[in-house]
């Protein structure tokens, strides 16, 4: 249903490259709205699209690869832990929400944004050893909803274009 194996491998590669470009754009122009720890998460646009265009396994491959490579390029060993916690948790939540079929692209992306922030905050609580960080959770929930909604709406718009390319 989703093209030949070669085609899917190529798609995974293209999407990883696109996610890395988006990560780089956010390194150059941080969209953090003046709040430390908040970011738009442009690369997540690619992951949301991958969840709809590819099999879950392949979308997962896109996610893990882009996290690993972007940490190598733009991050550090510590930032890899934050990225992995946020990225893997949000992927799991989004894949389940997508399979459940109750929510649309926007809802799936909102759940992804929120769970990404929760995963990162959990790592910060462990690494910094203080539960006081829970005060940051309301801010991160709100930012996860807003950035997730934005990313989801764009992904929804992009889907027909991706489908046309494939067909």
């Amino acid at each position: 249903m989703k093209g030949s194996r070669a085609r899917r491998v190529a798609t995974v590669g293209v999407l990883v490259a696109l996610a890395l470009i988006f990560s780089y754009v956010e390194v150059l122009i941080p969209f953090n709205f003046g709040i430390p720890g908040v970011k738009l998460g442009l690369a997540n646009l690619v992951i949301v699209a991958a969840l709809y265009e590819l099999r879950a396994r392949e979308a997962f491959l896109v996610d893990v690869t882009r996290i690993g490579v972007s940490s190598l390029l733009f991050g550090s060993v510590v930032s890899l832990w934050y990225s992995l916690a946020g990225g893997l948790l949000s992927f799991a939540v989004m894949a389940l929400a997508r399979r459940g079929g109750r929510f649309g692209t926007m809802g799936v992306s909102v759940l992804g944004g929120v769970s990404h922030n929760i995963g990162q905050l959990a790592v910060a609580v462990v690494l910094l050893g203080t539960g006081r960080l829970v005060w940051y959770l309301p801010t991160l929930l709100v930012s996860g909803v807003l950035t997730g909604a934005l990313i989801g709406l764009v992904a929804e718009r992009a889907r027909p274009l991706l489908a046309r390319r494939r067909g």
Partner: protein
Amino acid sequence: MGETRRRDLLLAAALLLAALLLWGGLRLASRGGDALDAVVTVDGAVTARLPLSQDARLEIVSEGGVNLLVIENGAARVAEADCRNQVCVHSRPIAQEGELIVCLPHKVVVTVERHEGE
């Protein structure tokens, strides 16, 4: 509006409500007087508690390096730090209960909490 879109918006609204409730709950659960303190945590341990009502400067020494905490006009901020990303230095001054400044590389957290004791 489709059924799915309606559910998506409901989900977003529910999560925003949850954030509000959590924030309210945290405020209700916190104890102490009306005066506010800047509480400094380094690697999980509270190392200093300074009243926001008094101007002060404090060098926070951690394994990672040094952050200079400045309390001025009832607000706390990190004026200098020898860390890589300078996120704490660029954070806005904090003056309300629950606001915080975090320096991830130095494992330093500064929060505003209600004054304990007395």
